[in-house]
Structure formats: structure tokens, C-alpha cells
């Protein structure tokens, strides 16, 4: 086996083949997803928000951060969603803030999933000692509340007169959010690597890298996709945490900072619903999309979980 492992040529073939398998696995999972009704609704929600975000990159009615209107106007013909307590146009902020919010959510989902996949497979497919060390690290990150780490690092950043921009927000959210996935991937890899077909591949002399890419990643693909949605949800929620705590860059416009300013000015106590509700609804909408996709995926993996409302119960009732 060590000979095969040292043969770099064989490995690179294994990797390129594996990557192709990986991509076809992702494409296959997405194709399957779209045949499920929950997932379809979830996907449409994300698509709608994506279009909203892309439009927002190129166009917003007014500059989102310009204080050019009267303060705290309720919705009217000029300001579709009214103005903030500082005189900014809420709708412009909402549309301009969509792209960064989605960017954070998706990058946290993608990078976080990749990291937990790597850690999970490494831990599940390596010796006992490495496995137990990784397991301990994963457990540490599972137990510590993410908000506390965000607070701690965020405040030290503030102390040196910096704040968490998008890059550092994404990094800290990945740091606090990768452990859930790693735990799942680890236990699945552990169970797969004990199966006979993996064992026979090892005996034939297939390299480890090739086994990991060709067999294990493919087998856990549905879980990878589901983990992506979960982590992206955490990314969305985490962005609001970072901004809400005030350790982010509050001059950036995203749905998190919009909430920060609205809550900080107690818009919910003063009846300025048009300031605080739009970002809340958009964030909840985004999260709802991720949740629907996730449970749609669950139903695909386990069809007995699906709800068939029309057929069975009514007919049985009539017959009875």
C-alpha cells in the first residue's frame, strides 16, 4: 500500500477522476432535489433572492447609504419602504444589502462544508490516535457557544481599531460553524470505511486518496449537500449575530447591519415597522429557503418521511 501511496502519478489520476465523480455527484443530488416539492419551493426562494441580489448589485433606486430624505418616513411613492431614522431609503438598502448577505451565507456554507468534509473524512479514515484528537477538537467547537467567540474576537478587533469586514466575518463564522458537519462526516466515513467494498479496494491496492474521492465522497454526497444548507443557514444567522453585536463594519449595507441600526434606534418600540420588518422578513425568507431544501433532501434520502396528503387518509375514511 505504501508503494501505491508514494506513486504520485496514480494519485493525481485518482484525484482528477475523483473530482469528476464529485461534480457528477453534486449535479445528481441537485437534479434529484428538484423533483421534491419542498425542495422546489426552497430552490425557488433562493433563486428569487438571488435575482433580487444581482439586480441590487447593478441598480438601486437611490444610493443606499445617502442621507438624502426626511427621517423616519412611512412607505410612500418615492420611498417604497419608507426611510430610516437617519433619512436613508429602506428599499435601496434592502436591495443593495442582498448580495453581501447572500455572499456571506453561501461562502460560509461552501467553505465550512469543505472544511468539515476534509476534517471528517480525515478523522474517519485515519488511525485511532488522530481520530480521537480530531474528535476532541470537534467536541470543543461543538460545546462552545459561537456567540461568545464572535464577541471575544470581535471586541479585540475593535480594540485595535478594526472591525470584522466580510472576509473576517466569513472566517469567524466558519471557525465557529464547521464542527457540526465534521461530526456528521466523521461518523459516516467511519461506517462506510468498514464496508466490504472499501475493504476490497484497499486489498486490491487502490490508493487511499482515490478511495476517499471515488467511493467515500460519493456515498456521502447527499449529506454534503444537506450540510451545505445547514451551514449556509448558520452563516445567515451568524452574520446577523456579528452585526447585531456591533463588532462588524457598520458602514457596510447588508440585512444584518440594517437590523443593527433599526434595533439600536429601537424602531420596534417607536412603531417604525417599515425600517425593521423588511430586513427581518428577508433574512427569515432566506433561512426558510435553506430549511425547505434541507428537509426536501431528507425526504429524498428517506422516502417514508414524505407526506402524501391526498391519497390515503380520505379514501380510508370514506370506506369506513
Amino acid at each position, binding site marked *: 500500500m505504501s508503494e501505491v501511496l508514494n506513486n504520485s502519478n496514480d494519485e493525481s489520476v485518482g484525484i482528477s477522476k475523483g473530482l469528476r465523480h464529485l461534480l457528477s455527484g453534486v449535479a445528481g443530488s441537485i437534479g434529484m432535489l428538484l423533483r421534491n416539492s419542498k425542495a422546489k419551493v426552497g430552490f425557488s426562494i433562493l433563486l428569487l433572492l438571488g435575482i433580487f441580489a444581482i439586480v441590487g448589485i447593478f441598480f438601486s433606486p437611490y444610493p443606499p447609504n445617502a442621507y438624502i430624505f426626511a427621517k423616519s418616513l412611512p412607505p410612500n411613492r418615492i420611498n417604497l419602504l419608507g426611510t430610516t431614522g437617519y433619512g436613508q431609503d429602506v428599499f435601496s438598502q434592502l436591495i443593495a444589502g442582498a448580495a453581501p448577505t447572500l455572499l456571506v451565507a453561501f461562502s460560509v456554507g461552501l467553505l465550512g462544508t469543505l472544511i468539515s468534509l476534509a476534517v471528517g473524512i480525515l478523522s474517519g479514515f485515519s488511525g485511532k490516535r488522530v481520530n480521537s484528537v480530531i474528535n476532541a477538537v470537534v467536541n470543543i467547537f461543538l460545546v462552545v457557544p459561537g456567540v461568545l467567540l464572535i*464577541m471575544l474576537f470581535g471586541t479585540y478587533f475593535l480594540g485595535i481599531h478594526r472591525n470584522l469586514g466580510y472576509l473576517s466575518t466569513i472566517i469567524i463564522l466558519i471557525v465557529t460553524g464547521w464542527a457540526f458537519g465534521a461530526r456528521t462526516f466523521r461518523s459516516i466515513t467511519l461506517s462506510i470505511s468498514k464496508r466490504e467494498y472499501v475493504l476490497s479496494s484497499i486489498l486490491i491496492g487502490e490508493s487511499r486518496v482515490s478511495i476517499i474521492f471515488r467511493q467515500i465522497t460519493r456515498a456521502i454526497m447527499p449529506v454534503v449537500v444537506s450540510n451545505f444548507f445547514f451551514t449556509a443557514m448558520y452563516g445567515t444567522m451568524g452574520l446577523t449575530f456579528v452585526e447585531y453585536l456591533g463588532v462588524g463594519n457598520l458602514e457596510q449595507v447588508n440585512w444584518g447591519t440594517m437590523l443593527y441600526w433599526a434595533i439600536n434606534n429601537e424602531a420596534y418600540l417607536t412603531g417604525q415597522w417599515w425600517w425593521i420588518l423588511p430586513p427581518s422578513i428577508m433574512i427569515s425568507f432566506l433561512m426558510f429557503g435553506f430549511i425547505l431544501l434541507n428537509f426536501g433532501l431528507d425526504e429524498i434520502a428517506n422516502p417514508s418521511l414524505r407526506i402524501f396528503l391526498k391519497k390515503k387518509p380520505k379514501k380510508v375514511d370514506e370506506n369506513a
Partner: protein
Amino acid sequence: MALPIKYIINKTSLFFIIFFGAISLNFFLPRLIPGNPAEVVYAEILKAGGSGINPSYLHQLEAEYGLSSAPIYVQYLVYLKDLFQGNLGVSIAFYPEPVFSILAQALPWTLFLVASSITISFFMGNLLGRYAGINRNTIKDLSVNIFGMFMASFPAFVLAFILLDIFAVYGKIFPLFGAYSIGMTPGLNLPFILSVLYHSALPILTIILTSIGGWILGMRNNIIPNLNSDYINYAENLGFKDYQIKNIAYRNALLPNLTGFAMSIGLSVSGVIIEESIFSYPGVGMYMITAIDNLDYPLMQGIFLMVIIAVLVGNLVVDLLYGFLDPRIRQEGE
């Protein structure tokens, strides 16, 4: 009954690893970040109006942060000694109040919110999930499902101000702030307890609603494969009564959710800390916002440590209880 000793040792050692990890992070982080936290803190105290402080306090602060010339392991030992004596330094935002006494007031309220909301949410969520799973493919199933998914999509503080608006600002059913009515003296008497429950109703409800979806869907998705499994068919054929069969399936479906219970503590603490300032509830979360706004490092570090210790203890207790509940772990010791 034999004790699952290996399991207990595993869980307890993890507890101590994380405990010392958190303590050490608290010690090393100020040293890793460029700049001198003592100077930042000193400047903040001056800004906060602590004009009576003389410059020697800067040296005192530096000593407190262990920024002396002493070797790092000596600094670490001094830090540990202070910690175990309950000396967490002096708050800046509430100068000259010690951090420890602030936390001693605040932490119990937060723990009360977390403990009651996750317990209620766990029981109600599992029962609702059981209800949905048993009434599979009916409108009841569908509505419980949709309710769970809908609730899970709100960040805790968004739901917090929505509920606050509906029930406190406009409805005037629940109070706007505080943990008990003004003018009451805390004590173990009925009016005080009622007032505490009354003030905590909305914060607890918020965390219940945001976390219940996970339990509902988890339980539903666990109990359905259980109800379809061979042992349930066997029990049916043996002539077990309907409710008995449901209870057996429920009990077996509960175990995976119980493992999730320990992990949910961390998430709920995050939720509670975030929502407390919206409800003006005098827990750790409110002080945390103040600490961040004023760059109150000592208070923040105290919050970090105390909350992590509380979460760790909660985890350990749940894990150990789980060891006794799960027969597979229980038998490992025999």
C-alpha cells in the same frame, strides 16, 4: 448497576480539556493581538470619566493582564490563582465594580432562561413530533411540520422584537423590561416568583419557538422509521396495544434527540444572550452589549469564562444522564 466508567472518564476529561482550553484562550488572546490591551483599557476608563485615576493604575492594569516582564508561565500561574479566587478584575463600564459581582447578579437570570426554555422546548417539541409522526400523512402532520419549519427560520432576536411588539408594546399583556417588577425585593415568596415568571414569559417563549422546530422534525423523522421497523411489526403481532406500541417507538426515537440535547445548550445560550438586550432582561446578554460598546475587556472575559463554564457543566450533566439512559452505554460497564 455497574457504572459505565470508560464513558464517564471520557466525558469528564473532555470537560477539563475544554475548561482549560477556554481559560488559556482567555489568557493568550490579549497577548496575541497587537497593541497593549492595558493601554486601551486605561484610555477607556479615562474616557468613561474615571478622572480620579492616577497613572499608576496603568501599571496595575498591566500587571493584571500579566504584561509584566515575568516569564510567561509565571504570568499564567498568577492568572490561574486569581481565577480560582474569583478575581476576574474590575469592570470598566461599571467602574469600580468587580466583574465577579456583576456576573453573580446576571448569570443566574440567563441560566434560568436557558434551562427553562430548552427543557420546555425539548419536551413540547418531542411530543409534537410524536403527534405528527403518529398521525402521518394527515393534515395534522402537515401543519405541525410547517409550523416547525416556519419557526426555525427566525433568528432569535427577530422573533424577540416581533413578540415584544405584539404582546408588550401594543398588546400591553406582558412587561417591556426587567426580570421582576420594580420595587420588589427578591425572595422566596409567591408574589415574587409570579412576577419573575410573568417577566420571563416572553423571553422563554422566544427561545422555545425558535428551537422547537428542530425537535419536532427530528422526532418525526426518527419515529417514522421506528414505526415501520420489524420490532414494531413483531410487537403488533404479539398483540401489544396501540398506545404501548407508540410508546415503545417513541422511546427508541427519543435517544438520538437526547444526544442533540447537550449540543443545543450552546445554541440556546447564544439565542438567550442575543435576545436579552431586546427584552431588557438583566442577564449576561445585556451586560455583554455594554461590554462590547465600552471595550470592557475584563467584563467580557469574565462573561466568556462564566458562560462557558455554565455550558460545560450543563453538557457534562446531560452527557452523564444520557450514559444512564442509553442501555448500550450503560451495559458497557458491566
